[in-house]
């Protein structure tokens, strides 16, 4: 009994101390945050990519806090992970977002489906800093709905310990037998992987074209299957650990993230693919369901403020379309070819356009097939269906169904017999 009481007391003490620490930390938050003093006069709901704003730790500028201080408007900040997730949230739930950050092709889709609100550019004076290169894009030809926030492109990262510096020239090296043993990684995402494969097809297919066909996708799929014999793995976020801890030698990824990887591992170097690459532009937009349009425009204008844009660019290492901000960015970063590739290279790049639902799901389907294809067999025959395997699965299924049926029938007969016996007794 004594034991139980003491255990109970111990538990009480533990929870009590937890509560106390929680309270005290709450107090300090309120203390230096001045939350209560501010007296917000409104709010703005922002839906952005994860780690896509300068957060205020490690000496970076806390952009959200800065906005709240300046305008006395509360920012409710939430994250999404993919463009598709953003689309689902906007279409399926009663979303109350005021500012969203879709990529190019998703902005096009949202605009075409009437899910975006026109922006009043008179309220965004800082729009004048945005470079003309990023205006009049196909996803918003008349510049009515979008304000470019960041841009980036797909580049290659490789380990100079395993691959001689300067040897890597372009995406074609991802198919090269020479680098197989260093470990080649590939995008685990249909759109990016297919785009690279399409560029390498013979003749090449333009991945930025809005009108490629199922045959084009089939050709790209064959190209991806061909790659399997030299490939180590399909990855997304895993690429950071794989490259930073020298596990793999060569990978395609987004340039801003490659900059971060090189920062963390001196052995890494980048290559800007000679074939040209996918240029993506993420824009600030206002959804049609927005409730605080004025605040949203205030927020967008604030994000285009050169100092703020520079702080964001320095944190994310993604390109900024803001010309004035580029002047303010740290010199090392600005002069880096990776961060700021020459203009004529960007002319070689393509931008994704919105695809038909039908074509897009066909692309996803073929990508999964490429991922699950058997490397040894398929790269020679370029087929994804192995008839022997189909027959084997069929046979297994047949055996299972028949034997289960027999077992069940036998059991039922036995049960009936037993019941008869019991009744007799």
């Amino acid at each position, binding site marked *: 009994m004594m034991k139980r009481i003491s255990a109970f007391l111990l538990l009480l003490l533990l929870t009590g101390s937890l509560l106390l620490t929680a309270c005290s930390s709450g107090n300090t938050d309120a203390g230096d945050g001045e939350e209560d003093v501010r007296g917000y006069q409104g709010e703005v709901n922002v839906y952005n990519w994860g780690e896509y704003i300068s957060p205020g730790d490690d000496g970076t500028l806390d952009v959200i806090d800065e906005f709240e201080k300046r305008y006395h408007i509360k920012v409710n900040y939430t994250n999404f992970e993919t463009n598709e997730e953003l689309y689902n949230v906007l279409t399926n739930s009663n979303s109350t977002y005021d500012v969203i950050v879709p990529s190019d092709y998703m902005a096009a889709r949202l605009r075409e489906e009437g899910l975006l609100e026109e922006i009043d550019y008179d309220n965004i004076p800082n729009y004048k800093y945005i470079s003309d290169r990023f205006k009049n894009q196909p996803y918003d030809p008349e510049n009515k709905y979008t304000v470019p926030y960041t841009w980036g492109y797909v580049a290659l990262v490789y380990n100079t310990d395993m691959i001689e510096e300067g040897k890597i020239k372009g995406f074609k090296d991802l198919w090269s037998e020479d680098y197989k043993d260093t470990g080649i990684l590939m995008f*685990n995402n249909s759109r990016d992987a297919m785009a690279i494969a399409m560029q390498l097809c013979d003749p090449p297919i333009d991945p930025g074209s809005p009108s490629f066909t199922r045959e084009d996708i089939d050709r790209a799929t064959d190209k991806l299957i061909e790659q399997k014999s030299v490939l180590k793995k399909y990855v997304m976020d895993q690429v950071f*650990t794989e490259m930073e801890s020298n596990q793999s030698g060569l990978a395609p990824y987004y340039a801003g993230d490659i900059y971060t990887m090189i920062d963390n591992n001196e052995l890494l170097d980048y290559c800007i693919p000679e074939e040209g690459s996918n240029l993506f532009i993420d824009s600030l937009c206002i959804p049609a369901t927005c409730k605080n349009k004025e605040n949203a425009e205030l927020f967008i204008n604030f994000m285009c403020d050169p100092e703020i844009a520079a702080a964001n660019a320095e944190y994310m290492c993604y390109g900024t379309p803001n010309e004035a901000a580029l002047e303010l960015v740290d010199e090392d970063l600005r002069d880096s070819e990776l961060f700021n590739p020459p203009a004529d290279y960007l002319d070689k790049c393509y931008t994704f356009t919105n695809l038909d639902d039908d074509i897009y799901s066909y692309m996803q389907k073929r990508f999964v097939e490429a*991922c699950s294809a058997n490397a040894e067999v398929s790269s020679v025959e370029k087929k994804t269906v192995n008839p022997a*395997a189909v027959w*084997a699965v069929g046979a*297994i299924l047949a055996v*299972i169904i028949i034997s289960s049926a027999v077992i069940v029938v036998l059991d039922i007969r036995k049960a009936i017999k037993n019941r008869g016996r019991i009744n007799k007794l």
Partner: protein
Amino acid sequence: MITNSVTATDASNKYTTLRQRRSENRSAMKSKKPAIPYLGWMLVFTIIPLVMVAYYAFTDSKGRFSLESFENATVYSEVFLYSLLIALISTAICLVLAYPLAFSISRCSQRSQTLIIMFLMVPMWMNFLLRIYAWVLILQNYGPLDMILRTFGIDITLIGNSGAVIVGMVYEFLPFMILPLHTVMSKIDNSLIEASQDLGCNGFNVFRKVVFPLSVPGIISGVTMVFVPTASTFLVAQYLGGTQFMIGDVIERVFQSDHHTGSAIAMVLMVVILGFLIFMNRFGDKEAVN
């Protein structure tokens, strides 16, 4: 001997009190009312989703009956076979590892049994993904295991192949094999083993005639509890394996764009697992009867 007889009487006491309690509760047990919340849960989260999966599997995108999605699913036959093979191997390794361990645990004193079982459970308090991730760090090139092997002059890639996937699976699901085996084995009365020894059985015959037949129900539930999740799990292959996916990964991917084909693959997997369960149960019944 003395301690044994004490535990035996203890156990019999326990059983009589249990029996008494049961007979007292029998009238209450007959009422099905307490099961209503669970039945509701089962209806909403088991029956309805199953019906939906079946519906999607047998229809096309326009909602008409069709077997098109099964035809589409044939592409993944090879992955399917590969997954079943991985599951079978992992289950076999789990059984071989767990059986002697469970037996020796069950022969320990009550106190150390609780302690050992707790230590087996401790890794399961951690997140599944973290544990797999830990294996990535252990097996990676220039990781701890690789460095040890290198000092002996063995230079092999430990990660990115089926072997690594199997290691991950065995680690992940070994407790599910040990626990049911231990539960069954701890109920085997020591006096049965002693009796068979008295009657002249050697070690092997004690195992063959006493321990093994009595532990069959534990083997059955252990094998099902390991085989079923290993056949359908996902992410393990993506982290520890190379470019070869497993069927769980495929289902996850396909579902993102095409519910119908995804459901068809899931249906086939369910049928195989169901057949496996029926077969295992049948096998178990027979053994128990013998």
